């Protein structure tokens, strides 16, 4: 029984990719008639087989409201910080300094980490330099950073971005794990404060 369920499951896992390829095909043709869709599905499946793409289990949830919030946040952030950057570019580019901060991430999901790092590189003013998968630490270069007091601000914005991605796309387990890690980090932070 399981021997024949496995290939079926594998095919099912590949369906979203083929579906996406089909949609792209139809969009490029500008035509959503059944003939185009069938041809697109065939080309998509053929390309998928020829490319021998590895099958990755995609464990994500999609929360429409949170995703809409995230998209809005990214759009606004892109626009505002591009204006901000333009101001610095035109007035005093030589004085603009940056900083590279190490931020321990709270999520442990490969996909979410990749999304967070891409999301940070997407918006103006922050860019992922390195991702330490084992330690779960992300290294982000931020600009403009005028002095030490701006560093915590950059760190907070990275953590906020992470939280938005986890809450928009994480499964229930991811969110539970994220919250546990957050409590642990908060506890560790408080303990470190007390020691000082």
């Amino acid at each position: 029984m399981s021997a024949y369920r496995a290939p079926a499951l594998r095919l099912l896992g590949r369906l979203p990719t083929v579906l996406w390829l089909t949609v792209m095909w139809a969009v490029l043709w500008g035509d959503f008639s059944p003939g185009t869709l069938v041809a697109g599905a065939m080309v998509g499946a053929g390309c998928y087989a020829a490319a021998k793409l590895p099958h990755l289990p995609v464990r994500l949830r999609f929360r429409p409201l949170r995703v809409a919030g995230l998209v809005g946040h990214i759009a606004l952030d892109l626009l505002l910080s591009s204006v901000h950057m333009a101001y610095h570019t035109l007035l005093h580019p030589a004085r603009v300094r940056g900083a590279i901060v190490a931020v321990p991430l709270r999520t442990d999901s490969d996909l979410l980490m990749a999304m967070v790092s891409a999301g940070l590189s997407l918006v103006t003013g922050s860019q992922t330099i390195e991702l330490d998968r084992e330690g779960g630490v992300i290294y982000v270069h931020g600009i403009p950073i005028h002095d030490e007091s701006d560093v915590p601000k950059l760190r907070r914005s990275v953590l906020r971005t992470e939280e938005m991605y986890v809450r928009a796309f994480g499964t229930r387990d991811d969110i539970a794990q994220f919250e546990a890690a957050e409590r642990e980090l908060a506890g560790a932070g408080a303990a470190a404060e007390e020691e000082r």
Partner: protein
Amino acid sequence: MTATDWATAVLMPLGALFALTGTIGMVRFPTLLGRMHASTKPDTVALVLILAGAAFQLPDLRSALPLALVAVFQFMTMPVLAQTLGRVAYSRGMVVSEHLVTDELADDLAKREAEEGRAAEDPRRAEAP
């Protein structure tokens, strides 16, 4: 001019302006990472604005869909490119520390190297006595 013409007339020059500031930034910023910030991000905004401006001139939504595809691919490829370039630039020592307020990656790399150095030395120490 119709309303759609007005939308295009606002969106396209705005996009061009963003592209221009990005390019000026590329020339005027002193550091490589600064240049990358200045050139990649405002250009994305510029592209989206110009695509939106172009979309208003098309007869219907269906012919505007490929433009959305262009934006999607820009959003998917740009961060990967920027990240790869940033990492390569960093590891080749092209990031000048005088323009950085802090560099925690350098600190952590030094720490990691020290640990690896100790691990490599250990067997030799065990053999010595």
